[in-house]
């Protein structure tokens, strides 16, 4: 019993030591946590709080070509890269407005020439390496380097001069323009910030274009996006896993993304995508055609399909207005004489039954269009653009004014002939893989038959079609569609400018071929350096009106964005901008907590 006080004292010392130790540990942890907190500025996203875990499966129409943003040209590669990389300033696909991303804030100088971007602190690449202003400098050096041949380079050359980038401190980067740039901070959207620590060596060796194949080892590839490379099975799938260093959190402070895995299945075509979705093998589907949409909505079975409204895709008919010079055959010269006649094109436009296209091709899930700015683009549409209804009488009157006349053939059909008495016959190319556009062409064929024009529809494999339109220029007319990637009309600048590669009716001209193309060029150049939205809008409206008057592109229709997801997928909000369903991939979650096994 005498021992007791001594024992107690000994114990007391031990307890005190232990307490001190724990206190110290706690303090250290606390300080560490404090430091971490001050270092890591997570971006908090509004929206439904989800559950962590699970794997989400989506399908891609074929394999992406590359993971490398510097050489990615196909939509599939861009979709995959989109979830693996991040940009400084991002366009919110739902609001179509810019938002802070890697840059937590930015300032524009009063003259509009200097953009100062402040980076978030504590940013890390998906391999755990820190990211700072040097990575940004490196990234833009790579993009602007001529030997890299990055598609982003064109965007970064403003007024013929590349953007100058300099670093103020580890978190601050300054972008200097030589001319004010109307697009403003939207420019930064989609420009992935590259990991200097992984790419600098290849850059110096000039081999950047060769890296980033799908077979790259997972530890050799990193990004700032919500997911990182895990596994690639050739011909079957690409598996991405959650990036544990991602820089966004939800409203309750959980680090995003929720999903632990994102799987891209490679399927051959749109129908296969629908089948996979129907059988429950994939959780989400986008870019649904109207017909497949109605198939899916008829038998909704554990999934929901939704119509996000008209998107930014515009489909149009255009004629070959290229200056073919010597190589044009007499027949082609004769045809081009019609095509160059404004009234001829206006007549074709007047005869096109856009309403029937919307109803028969898109089953009513689309909108008729008369201008280049698609109806999904709310801010930039021109309310004053003429939208004349279909009128065969007007079309006939226009043709008559242009010197065309009609004869009655042996079979009792009236056929159109030009002033030299030659029958008006031409062909329309369409992409054989695009059933919608083939249908459009078939409808146009019938519309134009009513004007007495003999039209043949030629379905061609898309690549050879593109080759004919942009390289060999051996075609009469073509039905094509373009999907703008942004709601700012500058994303279509190469369609507008006569020097642009996708100025489809007569691409890459050294000098504008017609006065109205010259005028459009001027308007577009002018708006590039206009400072306010209203100024730009006015210039764009004028350009649209010129296009509507001269009809080098006869705009037809724009489809709705149709998508679907299993009911178990949370935060499914399809947008009309690419990537339609994966734009908020970090917030997507599985309501049943990853039990999304195939049915």
């Amino acid at each position, binding site marked *: 019993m005498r021992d007791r006080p001594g024992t107690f004292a000994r114990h007391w010392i031990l307890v005190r030591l232990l307490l001190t130790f724990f206190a110290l540990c706690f303090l250290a942890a606390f300080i560490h946590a404090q430091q971490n907190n001050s270092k890591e500025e997570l971006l908090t996203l509004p929206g439904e709080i989800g559950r962590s875990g699970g794997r989400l499966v989506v399908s891609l129409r074929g394999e992406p070509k590359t993971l490398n943003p510097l050489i990615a040209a196909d939509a599939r590669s861009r979709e995959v890269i989109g979830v693996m990389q991040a940009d400084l300033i991002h366009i919110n696909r739902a609001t179509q407005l810019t938002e802070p991303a890697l840059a937590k804030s930015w300032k524009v100088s009063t003259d509009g020439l200097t953009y100062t971007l402040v980076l978030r602190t504590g940013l890390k690449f998906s391999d755990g390496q820190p990211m700072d202003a040097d990575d940004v400098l490196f990234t833009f050096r790579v993009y602007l380097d001529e030997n890299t041949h990055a598609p982003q380079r064109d965007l970064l050359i403003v007024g013929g001069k590349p953007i100058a980038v300099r670093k103020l401190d580890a978190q601050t980067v300054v972008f200097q323009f030589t001319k004010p740039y109307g697009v403003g901070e939207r420019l930064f959207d989609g420009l992935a910030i590259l990991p200097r620590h992984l790419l600098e060596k290849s850059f110096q060796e000039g081999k950047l274009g060769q890296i980033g194949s799908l077979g790259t080892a997972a530890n050799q590839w990193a990004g700032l996006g919500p997911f990182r490379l895990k596994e690639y099975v050739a011909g079957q799938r690409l598996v991405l896993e959650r990036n544990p260093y991602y820089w966004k959190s939800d409203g309750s402070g959980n680090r995003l993304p929720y999903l632990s895995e994102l799987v891209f299945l490679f399927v051959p075509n749109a*129908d296969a995508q*629908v*089948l996979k979705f129907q059988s429950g093998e994939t959780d989400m589907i986008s870019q649904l*055609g*109207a*017909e*497949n949409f*109605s*198939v899916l909505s*008829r038998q909704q079975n554990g999934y929901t399909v939704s119509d996000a409204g008209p998107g930014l895709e515009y489909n149009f008919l255009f004629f070959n207005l290229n200056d073919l010079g010597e190589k044009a055959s007499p027949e082609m010269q004769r045809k081009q004489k019609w095509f160059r006649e404004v009234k001829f094109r206006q007549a074709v436009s007047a005869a096109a*039954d856009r309403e*029937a296209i919307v*109803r*028969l091709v898109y*089953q*009513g899930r689309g909108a008729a269009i008369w201008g280049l700015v698609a109806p999904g683009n709310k801010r930039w549409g021109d309310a004053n653009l003429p939208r004349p209804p279909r009128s065969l009488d007007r079309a006939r009157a226009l043709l008559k004014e242009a010197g065309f006349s009609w004869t009655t053939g042996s*079979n*009792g059909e009236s056929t159109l002939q030009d002033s030299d008495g030659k029958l008006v016959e031409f*062909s329309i*190319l369409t992409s*054989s893989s695009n*059933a919608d556009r*083939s*249908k459009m062409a*078939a*409808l146009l*064929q*019938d519309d134009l038959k009513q004007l007495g024009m003999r039209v*043949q*529809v*030629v*379905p*061609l494999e898309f690549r*050879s079609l593109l080759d*004919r339109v942009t390289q060999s220029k*051996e*075609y009469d007319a073509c039905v094509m569609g373009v999907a703008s990637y942004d709601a700012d009309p500058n994303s279509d600048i190469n369609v507008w400018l006569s020097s642009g590669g996708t100025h489809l009716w007569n691409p890459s001209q050294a000098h504008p071929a017609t006065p109205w193309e010259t005028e459009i060029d001027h308007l577009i150049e002018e708006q590039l350096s206009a400072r306010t939205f209203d100024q730009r809008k006015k210039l764009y409206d004028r350009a649209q009106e010129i296009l509507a008057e001269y009809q080098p592109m006869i705009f037809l229709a724009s489809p709705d964005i149709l998508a679907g997801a299993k009911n178990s997928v949370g935060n499914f909000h399809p947008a009309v901008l690419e990537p339609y369903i994966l734009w908020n991939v970090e917030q997507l979650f599985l309501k049943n907590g990853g039990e999304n096994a195939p049915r």
Partner: protein
Amino acid sequence: MIRRRNVRLWLLILAILHGIILCAGFSAPYDPIQQDRKNPYLPPMRPHFVDVGRRLHLRPFVYAVQLRPGTFDQYVEDTTQPRPLKFFLPGDRYRLFGLFQSRFHLFGADSDRVYLLGTDAFGRDQLSRIIFGGQISLLAGFLGSCLTLLIGWCVGAVSGYFGGWRDDVLMRLAELFLALPWLYLLFALRAFLPLTVNPLHAFFLIVAVLAGVGWARPARLVRGIVLSAKERDFVRAARGFGASNFYLLRRHILPEASSVLLTQAAILIPQYVLAEMTLSFLGLGVPEPVPSWGNLLSNLQQYSVLVSYWWMYLPALAMVPFFLGYLGLASALQERSDPYMIERRSLGSLA
């Protein structure tokens, strides 16, 4: 003679079937390329004899259909509007056999269009398209097999009768043709052709391709017959009397092959119709909007059509009676030609 009657029976059936197709302008109610944009994917209208009031009508009628509001392809029968089917009534103009102009059609309705087999994506009458499509498909099959047999006959005769190096060259060539992956060759060929092929050229292209690809088998068959026939006693005798090669071939040897060739024709025609359908299905045939059985079926390449509109399968059924007719004729011909050679020839024709 049961067998002879058999042949006649089959010939009669085929004649009726071909008559329908040949007089497509008359037997089809509408112009096959005319679009009715208000009625896309309209399901087949059912002919009725008994109306909703349970009254019996001697004249069949269909009910008018209306699009269910807010839908694209859901139609409801409007039982208040019966549309009696009329026969031999005037409609779209057409030319029979490319010669006689006429406006009369086998059947139709007065006020509205009737679609007994439904419509396609553009509201074109499926029945008219099937009937007109048959013209292309059957004619391609017929011309293709005639050309094939002609080539096969000549090559086989030369090869079998003269023998020696000619035989070697021709038979190696035939083997080469048998071994070619012709479908891929066709795709390659199409890439070299001019961009726009008008329907007539496309049609003759198909015929030429079918014949060019298929001549090797009949040639080998004919060669075998010629080989055995030229050693027959009466042929030797004729030669002894000083008959020329050409006379021998014409008078004594090739007639031996004629019954085989007839049987071959009856087998080849349906095969070639099927081949035309395959080519058109793959987009190598006559271009839209001209119908052929193959490009009518090519709509089924789209999954949504496949699962939503069952009447788009009907063009596939259209060929069934024709095929049965031809195959029946082939076996009847085979029996008639020589009962003792059935076994050998059926083997030969299957090869």
